[in-house]
């Protein structure tokens, strides 16, 4: 895997999580004040940085095959779940992640809570809301940075990609002071699901002792193959949904007549 591919994979994955975290921080900032929300977000980023800094060197010390087997398996399971969710959303089976609706719900809840000062934090509710939001969404970012980075012995590069995504999305969210509803979140999730699944399968198989035909070039078949599978499943679900809608529409006049 080249440095460029590693950067793109981590950047895209972290963009999805950063959009979700930004929605929560914006709701905390607008409802409870920017200072407390900023403290919460920065504190969560600091915790995650410590986790990556502590676990990163420990992971890279593990023998490559064992690391690839364990990390690859986790990444494979994690990736298939992402892809599954993206396919179900794109196929209309489950609702798309609506940042605007999530933002309005968080905002309404945050506006109702009573203010409470703790130490240098002017509003404890705003702090914890932003802290929890960034920490929860950021855990997936840390997971991706650690898995991709340790496998390629490039944790600093993976961290830089994650940092770039967080800064870019955070700055965009702060500039518009509204949830980034226009980011094609599900398409990104689909793409990242394909990459996590592909790299996870590749590394897990190598760690288990398998040898891929063509070595790294196998990824050029594996990744598009998984993408095609996801697209076919999405198309199948949409077709099924349309057929069900037609049946319901056809049945409605009959029911009305009887």
């Amino acid at each position: 895997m080249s440095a460029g591919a590693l950067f793109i994979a981590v950047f895209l994955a972290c963009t999805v999580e950063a959009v979700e975290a930004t929605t929560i921080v914006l709701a905390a900032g607008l409802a409870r004040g920017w200072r407390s929300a900023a403290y919460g977000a920065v504190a969560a980023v600091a915790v995650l940085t410590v986790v990556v800094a502590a676990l990163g060197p420990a992971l890279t010390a593990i023998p490559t095959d064992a690391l690839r087997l364990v990390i690859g398996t986790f990444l494979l399971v994690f990736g298939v779940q992402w892809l599954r969710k993206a396919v179900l959303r794109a196929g209309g089976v489950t609702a798309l992640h609506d940042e605007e609706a999530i933002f309005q719900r968080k905002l309404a809840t945050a506006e109702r809570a009573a203010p409470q000062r703790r130490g240098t934090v002017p509003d404890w509710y705003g702090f914890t809301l932003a802290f929890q939001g960034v920490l929860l969404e950021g855990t997936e970012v840390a997971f991706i940075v650690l898995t991709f980075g340790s496998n390629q012995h490039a944790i600093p590069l993976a961290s830089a990609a994650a940092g770039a995504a967080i800064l870019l999305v955070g700055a965009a969210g702060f500039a518009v002071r509204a949830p980034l509803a226009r980011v094609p979140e599900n398409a990104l999730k689909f793409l990242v699901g394909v990459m996590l699944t592909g790299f996870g399968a590749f590394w897990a198989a190598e760690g288990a002792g398998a040898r891929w035909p063509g070595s790294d070039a196998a990824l050029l078949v594996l990744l598009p193959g998984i993408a095609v599978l996801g697209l076919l499943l999405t198309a199948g679900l949409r077709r099924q949904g349309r057929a069900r809608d037609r049946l319901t529409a056809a049945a409605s006049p009959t029911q009305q007549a009887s």
Partner: protein
Amino acid sequence: MGRRVRALAAFVYDLVIGDDWRVALGLAMAVAVTAAVSRTAFASWWLLPAAILALLPWSVWRTARRRA
């Protein structure tokens, strides 16, 4: 304290295993089979792509059928 540990365990489960534990189990088993076959003279690289090809559509259709 117990509540926090349970919440953390639930979070880790949701992060790694996700909505369908059967897929996670199936993939873990496929990795184990790959490791076992790799010790023989047979090719084992195709086992994980085959597992994805079987498990992902199965899980998606199961969920779609349940929600229909």
